[in-house]
């Protein structure tokens, strides 16, 4: 009887530790099995939309409002290095900016709203290099190029 009473706290503590461990395991499995990846995917998709919008805005903003005899603009563009933990690409073609990423659910295209004198938009930005937008031309026509600065 006395020995049984001596064991009571040990049993109680072991039981408590077991319950807490089971609880932590259950919560971890629930979070990392479904909730966290889903939230990360949501965040990546939202960030992708924002990056695409920011890139398109940077290109549109770089073009001077008034046509001048000799247009020469070079502007650095700041973009996040990764989306969803993966590097990505912004590609320009046919007055459209496209986001290309290996992460599922990240991507899309944005049509650029440019003056009629812009004859073409070309080039690619890879997220792991510093990006610049270069505009060269004259009063009647100019070209927009997305360039990477080799570090």
């Amino acid at each position, binding site marked *: 009887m006395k020995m049984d009473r001596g064991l009571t706290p040990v049993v*109680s503590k072991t039981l408590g530790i077991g319950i807490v461990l089971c609880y932590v395991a259950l919560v971890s499995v629930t979070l990392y099995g479904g909730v966290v990846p889903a939230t990360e995917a949501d965040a990546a998709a939202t960030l992708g*939309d924002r990056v695409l919008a920011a890139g398109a805005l940077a290109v549109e903003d770089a073009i001077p409002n008034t046509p001048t005899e000799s247009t020469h603009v070079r502007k650095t563009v700041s973009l996040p290095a990764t989306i969803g933990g993966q590097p990505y690409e912004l590609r320009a073609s046919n007055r459209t900016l496209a986001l290309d990423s290996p992460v599922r659910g990240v991507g899309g295209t944005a049509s650029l709203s440019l003056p009629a004198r812009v004859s073409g938009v070309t080039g690619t930005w890879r997220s792991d290099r510093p990006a610049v937008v270069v505009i060269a031309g004259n009063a009647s026509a100019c070209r927009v190029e997305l360039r990477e600065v080799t570090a």
Partner: protein
Amino acid sequence: MSRARGQASLLALGVALLLVTGALGVALTATHGAFAGVDRDAADARLADSLAARAVAADGPLSDRGRANVLDGTAIRDLRTADTAALFPAARGHAVQFTLDGEVLASTGDATGGATSRRIVLVTSEKTRAYGPRFKNGTRFVLHERADALDVTMAPPNGTRVTTVRIDGRIALRDPQGLAGSYRVAVSPYRPASVAVAADGPLPAGSVVLVAHGETTRTATVEVRVRA
């Protein structure tokens, strides 16, 4: 008694875990709500902003004489019949609606409930006003309104020669042999111009007719609505 005490500590543990679970649930709901609350579609909002910026730009298709945020009233009237996608290539393939003070100017689809961008602009319109005052030597006639240009048409009676037309004290037209016909002269748009005519005989009303070409502006709101 001792069993009741053991259960009490287990009960406390249970309540603690329940509270932790509750806190976790609240945090997860808030996270989910933050993403669900992104009701402004980034792509639509970006396109609406871009198109609105293009619409009011100094080199945009609607601008009046290359001024930013000033729209040509005629170009806006023409927009109703023009090909919107040709003027705004970025709108091609999207449901875009342009409105001016709530009145639909152009649309490329049903954009109801889409992302919206608004700009305050000036809308210009041409305004002409004709005057046929009686001129006497040495008197000035002041226009009732400001104008950019003035058409001066002279048809003096026989035997009278109009030699000089002064605008704001400066000689604008002069011919000692006599002026006749129609002339366009530029005047200061910043104040109503004054006109004085010098002739070597009497000028009845209608001998000199002035037509003032001015510009009136009104403030309006351009709204661009986009739904992908």
